[in-house]
């Protein structure tokens, strides 16, 4: 298969004088972990927004799984197999952890409003939800309200919700944000275990995570992708060292 899972071509988006995406082109192959790094304000989150459908690009195209989805609404992309986690934890705090994941299963379970059977008694929703919680190590916390989980656990819950959608591609917007070293290590191990099974676009500041997980790395500066390649190649790229890594390593 030569067609990549996700093909981004020439995406442009600006906010007034600020150019957030300047002809961004990227490919993500099936099963690949592709990290996008870059200093703050480089346009990484805007890029994620254009992939999920929350932000409309001014020009350029997004093709996913062989279809052009540039103008598709958010929910339709999700149903096609694109799952995201949010930079700021986004869960349903009043519902139990299991309910949170069961909603994700339900979203992927097909059309039809069930209006009669109690959804909390449906094994076809609960069993996959439990499996996803187990996968991220939250099996013991299924019953309590999601809002009562610790920060790191909530990030794990987000991942469980994304997994429960049965995605082809995970869009992970800073999954390690705000985590201590222990939680970060656990999240890296979780993502490493998923490698190969599902493709990931990983936006992350934590260089340890990026170099541990990524097959390829793209570097963004001022809305432009200035380099793409293996971690080692990108690390050695003089333009990247100048623009980004140099400062980081000196710090």
């Amino acid at each position: 298969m030569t067609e990549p899972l996700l093909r981004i071509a020439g995406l442009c988006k600006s906010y007034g004088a600020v150019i957030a995406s300047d002809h961004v082109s990227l490919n993500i192959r099936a099963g690949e972990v592709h990290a996008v790094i870059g200093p703050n304000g480089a346009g990484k989150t805007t890029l994620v927004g254009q992939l999920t459908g929350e932000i409309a690009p001014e020009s350029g195209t997004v093709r996913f799984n062989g279809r052009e989805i540039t103008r598709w609404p958010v929910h339709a992309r999700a149903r096609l197999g694109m799952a995201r986690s949010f930079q700021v934890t986004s869960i349903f705090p009043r519902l139990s952890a299991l309910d949170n994941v069961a909603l994700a299963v339900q979203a992927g379970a097909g059309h039809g409003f069930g209006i009669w059977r109690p959804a909390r008694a449906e094994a076809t929703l609960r069993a996959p939800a439990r499996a996803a919680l187990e996968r991220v190590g939250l099996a013991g916390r299924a019953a309590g309200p999601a809002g009562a989980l610790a920060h790191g656990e909530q990030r794990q819950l987000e991942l469980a919700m994304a997994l429960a959608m049965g995605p082809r591609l995970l869009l992970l917007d800073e999954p390690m944000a705000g985590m201590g070293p222990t939680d970060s290590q656990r999240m890296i191990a979780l993502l490493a275990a998923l490698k190969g099974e599902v493709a990931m676009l990983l936006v992350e500041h934590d260089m340890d995570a990026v170099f541990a997980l990524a097959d390829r790395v793209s570097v963004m500066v001022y809305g432009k992708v200035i380099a793409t390649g293996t971690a080692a190649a990108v690390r050695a790229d003089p333009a990247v060292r100048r623009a980004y890594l140099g400062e980081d390593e000196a710090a």
Partner: protein
Amino acid sequence: MDNPRAAGARRAALIGAACALALLAPALAAAAGADYLIGVGTRALILALAGLGLNLALGYGGMVSFGHAAFFGAGAYTVAILGFHATLGEPLLTWPFEIAGTESAFLAWPAAMAAAGALALVIGAISLRTSGLYFIMITLAFAQMLFFFFVSLEAYGGGDGLGLWARSSLPPLDLHDPWQFYYTVLGLLALFAVLKGRLVASRFGLALQGIRDNERRMRALGFPTVRYKLAAFAISGAVTGLAGALIANHAEFVSPALLSWQRSGEILVIVILGGMGTVAGPIVGAIAFVATEEALSQWSEHWRIVFGPLLVLAVLFARQGLWGLIAARERIHD
């Protein structure tokens, strides 16, 4: 924190006691020599049904509708207009197909729900493009439009309203008998409370609550959230429309006042006072509302001076509503 199981048992006991009281209420009123209270109770139950309808949009869907009087009034006018044509013996419509008037509850009440539901579908489809304060304002605006539409509808009484020749016929019952009408309303309220209980625990209901709590997340999970909200809004309007059909029967009179913004506010207050997002809340709210109104209005004609502050206190001190206060918080399920 309450033990969930104890809270559940307490809730079950409360609901059982309330059902027993509701069943015995007409007999108690008659024994006390206050037969007019049966009518008051009937009105409270009708408002409870209206609140139950609104709660689906407000409490479960997070849609603050300030225009539910439109659906209440649409339901009421449907019954009144169909009855009016039945009395005249003239069809309501001759083209493109003939619609004859009717006094049958089996036809008029479902028609009232259909009319209110269809109206809610149209108003919702437009209003749901907005959210927050704008949603409140646009639903209010639609209700006001409808209010003035009925004011200017001279054929059906205009601003003076339209009397019903008779209550709907629901054989073998005679709805002119206050007892039978009371139990009919009580039965419908119980039926819709059970249906709503099923609905909010279903896939649709959980998705709706997810949208209320975090709509952006639901979209990212793959839910077409607007479609869900619109469906909930239409069902909500239809149920409030049925309450309207009942109030038309209760008063044997309809007027544009049924569609006034004050009426929308009243239904909102009933839901908020009783407890949003619970099945029992609007029922408790409606009974408390009507009982307080009744008690205070006997005491003074300026009863609203006391009623207003009481409502403010109730909302301040019972954030979960009266039902939340007496039955403890909703249990979080496994």
